């Protein structure tokens, strides 16, 4: 085999190519890197923690309003099955619409809730707040004063961070 390209061809091609990435092939692909590059949720500890906090938050907010899952589903106009998964399954990624509806019902910034639910990569501060919140809550007991306070503070923090986001371009 012989390759016949002129020097001029090579240089013109090189100049068009510039410094671009040229890598090819499935074996080259690192799944976690690719998922992150495409804006998909990573199966990382940070994401799991925020998703855990999301489920917990929804549950506590629901109980603060003394609602059953069924009642919340009706009011928010979302699937009850999905609500169950949100509250119970840490790996579950809810539909963005569902997150939006829940934000409306609980009077939260939708963007704030999106960061928790796995629809967007969580900021480090969000992850930190999520860990603090989840660690300070006991899901099976009635909502205590401590839990109520924790919910309030977490919601305030999320809203504050969402506002910060709104200011940055």
């Amino acid at each position: 085999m012989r390759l016949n390209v002129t020097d001029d061809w090579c240089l013109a091609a090189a100049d068009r190519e510039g410094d671009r990435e040229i890598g090819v092939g499935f074996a080259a692909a690192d799944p976690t890197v690719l998922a992150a590059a495409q804006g998909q949720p990573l199966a990382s500890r940070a994401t799991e923690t925020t998703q855990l906090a999301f489920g917990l938050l929804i549950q506590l907010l629901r109980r603060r309003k003394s609602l059953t899952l069924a009642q919340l589903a009706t009011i928010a106009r979302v699937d009850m099955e999905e609500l169950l998964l949100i509250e119970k399954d840490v790996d579950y990624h809810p539909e963005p619409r569902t997150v939006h509806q829940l934000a409306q019902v609980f009077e939260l910034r939708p963007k704030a809730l999106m960061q928790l639910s796995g629809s967007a990569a969580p900021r480090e501060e969000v992850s930190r707040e999520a860990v603090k919140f989840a660690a300070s809550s006991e899901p099976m007991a009635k909502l205590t004063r401590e839990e109520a306070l924790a919910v309030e503070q977490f919601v305030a923090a999320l809203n504050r961070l969402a506002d910060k986001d709104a200011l940055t371009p």
Partner: protein
Amino acid sequence: MSSLIATIKLREVATNQAIQAQVFDGIDQTHLSNWKTKWVPVVQATEARLLAQGAPASVYPQSAHWDWNKKTTAFQNLLSYRMFAVTCAHDTQGLMAVATDVVMHPSRLPDDKGRRALGLVYIDFLEAAPWNRPEHVQPPRYRGVGSVLIATAIQLSLDEGFKGRIGLHSLPQSEDFYRNIVRMNDLGPDTSYPGSFPLRYFEFTTAEAQAFIQGGKP
């Protein structure tokens, strides 16, 4: 076994000069040890740096997990597989592995008679040395490795009777190059490999490939 199939030019970024380089058919021990002793440490240094900076996974260099030693062993004696290297200034500047069996890699685009599932040269892997990539080394050393390897794949396709047809799955960071510079047809994310991330599949028709290698714009 490795044989020289062309002497070409690369653009040296620092001086803007044209630098003589070589294209080899077949990879041998010199290319492999160059990969191991020179490429790998640079890639590992980048990963360590990104890790220390707490960068999100999306900026990690893709193709950090290739192992060319393993690839060569697997492909060595199979007629279907061919490997190529670009060298310059005693270093391996780029590596490529291709498959030429039509059953595993049939063409998807119709030819001028409307026929599909024809043979093509499928690029299994293609990688530039890390010092030619800004995500590892700024400024990069040489430009043009990608274009030369694509031209090589097209030439092989012509030799095999595949009329220049080539296909490949691009890494996301490389889509700009294949779509906008090489101007291959983007057939979209390929979901036919369950368990793998759906990389976008690109293919050249006969006319387009021949136009690329002859320097005219398709």
